[in-house]
């Protein structure tokens, strides 16, 4: 049986925003949040930031689930990490330790049925992609996923065809409007906030049809690919996992994250979570350096919003040069050592 515990924190009664509704009815948003090590994760703040664009007077509640003291700490952190957050809802149960989609979608449905938000927002990372559509089906609404621009409470822009076209979509259904946003399109700020804690309803019909077994991941000191300021990516031209270490050395020199093309991951040079592309990670760093990357449509989809793109490739006809700001036709096995030698110390 699930246990529900309310947080013991003082209630602040002054609402952050005016309670008078604006435009077509009042807007209220539930952000499906993630936390780790007692703090709200950065992607959640992108979702909160995105919620601002839905309309004036939008009161944002953050839903956190998990168990134990790290959940409590995360809820307190959520309370003070963004000015738009006026409420934190906490679901404390074993069901949520591993963030499976089935209990999460059911939780979202229950919270929505109780609170009646106009919008439910998450970020389109692997958690959001897994949970949001299932929750939408339970609520019988169409979700709008991977949104890059919000122009009001029910009009959104999302990329299609690997980002080679943009689709402007209008939601014409009833509340709630469910959307997931690209964190690269809504970078998070950092400030303080008011806060009210609420406990969430936990379904008694525990969903036990799926269970978590394990997570296999690589330990790394490199910054997170999703929000690094600099990314160094290698393609299949690196030829081996051993050679890929050159990419890592360059990344270390630049304080960058390491990325890879599908071909490099398929060939086993690096694990899957480094893949940048249409179906991998979408990144938008200040500087993206691509070594031995041909520039296939599907890879470009994942990095085309980078501020500055540098490409190094032996083949002057490689499509990557069409999207690069600076291109160097050359052998990466010569260029990378030269860069390592000549780049200024960080």
């Amino acid at each position, binding site marked *: 049986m699930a246990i529900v515990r309310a947080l013991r924190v003082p209630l602040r009664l002054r609402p952050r925003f005016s309670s008078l509704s604006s435009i077509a009815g009042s807007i209220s948003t539930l952000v499906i949040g993630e936390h780790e090590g007692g703090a709200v994760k950065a992607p959640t703040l992108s979702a909160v930031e995105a919620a601002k664009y839905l309309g004036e007077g939008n009161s944002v509640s953050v839903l956190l689930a998990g168990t134990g003291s790290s959940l409590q700490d995360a809820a307190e952190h959520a309370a003070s990490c963004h000015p738009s957050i006026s409420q934190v809802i906490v679901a404390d149960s074993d069901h949520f330790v591993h963030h499976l989609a089935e209990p999460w*979608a059911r939780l979202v449905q229950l919270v929505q049925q109780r609170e009646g938000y106009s919008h439910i927002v998450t970020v389109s*990372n*692997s*958690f959001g*992609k*897994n949970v949001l*559509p*299932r929750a*939408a*089906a339970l609520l019988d*609404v*169409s*979700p*709008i*996923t991977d949104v890059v621009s919000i122009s009001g409470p029910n009009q959104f822009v999302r*990329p*299609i*065809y*690997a980002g*080679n*076209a*943009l*689709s*402007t*979509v*209008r*939601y*014409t259904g009833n509340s709630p409007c469910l959307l997931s946003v690209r964190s690269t399109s809504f970078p998070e700020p950092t400030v303080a906030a008011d806060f009210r804690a609420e406990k969430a309803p936990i379904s008694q019909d525990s969903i036990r*049809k*799926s*269970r*978590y*077994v*394990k*997570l*296999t*991941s*690589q330990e790394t000191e490199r910054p997170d690919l*999703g929000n690094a300021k600099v990314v160094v990516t290698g393609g299949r031209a690196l030829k081996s996992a051993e050679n890929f270490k050159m990419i890592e050395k360059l990344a270390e020199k630049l304080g960058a994250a390491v990325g890879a093309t*599908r071909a490099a991951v*398929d060939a086993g040079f690096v*694990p*899957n*979570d480094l893949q940048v592309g249409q*179906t991998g990670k979408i990144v938008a760093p*200040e*500087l993206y350096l691509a070594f031995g990357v041909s520039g296939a*449509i599907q890879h470009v989809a994942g990095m*085309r919003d980078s*501020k*500055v793109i540098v490409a190094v490739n032996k083949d002057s006809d490689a499509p990557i040069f069409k*999207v*690069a*700001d*600076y*291109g*160097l036709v050359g052998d990466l096995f010569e*260029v990378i050592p030269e860069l390592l030698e*000549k*780049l200024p110390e960080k």
Partner: protein
Amino acid sequence: MKIMVAVKRVIDYAVKIRVKADKSGVETQNVKMSMNPFCEIALEEALRIKEAGLASEVVAVTMGPKQSIDTLRTGLAMGADRGIHVEATGDLFPLAVAKLFKALVEIEKPGLIILGKQAIDNDCNQTGQMVAGLLGWPQGTFASKVVLDKEKQEVMVDREVDGGLETVCLNLPAVITTDLRLNQPRYATLPNIMKAKSKPVKKYTPEELNVATKSDLEVVEVTEPPKRKAGVLVSSVDELIDKLKNEAHVI
């Protein structure tokens, strides 16, 4: 056990798409169409499960206009036993597709449903999750490995997630969506293409399945993304470093 596999007809992945001048959509006339690559992977996985003796039948399902039958025939040529074509004109959004799927599941009663994780045209990555939600079945999305245990009526799925590879264990019946590295799909051989012509295809309309396809979503316009300023070629590492430092100010 029966496996149902969703297959979608999309613009071929290698085609450079063009946005229509009137912004109503992407040009599809006289453009090469193919089975969505993730759907090929889904079908391949179903066929392998059947070939391992763990399933009795693979049913390929497609939804869309008349021409979708081509994709279904490709699926039959790859080795699916039967096809189902839900014929519908106009935009079919994932919620409608999921509801149509649910209606078919009530007729066919499969033990496993496999879909591609996303279609490369609208890149939604929603349908599998929605089918699972409507059916109340567990979901294993972005699968890079699937291992069925017939006796325990369970399936272990390795999922490609942001942090690496997550393994989950699902009770059957379940919904799985496929990621790129799950398998390498087979080509349809000529004898199989010939055989496919006589495999049965059942047609339905959304009305026959009692599903309303009117959507709560409307496409307002389709536009090109902002163009990047043209880049320059540099001739040396020195020049590159200089430009990055003094022109772009990123190092």
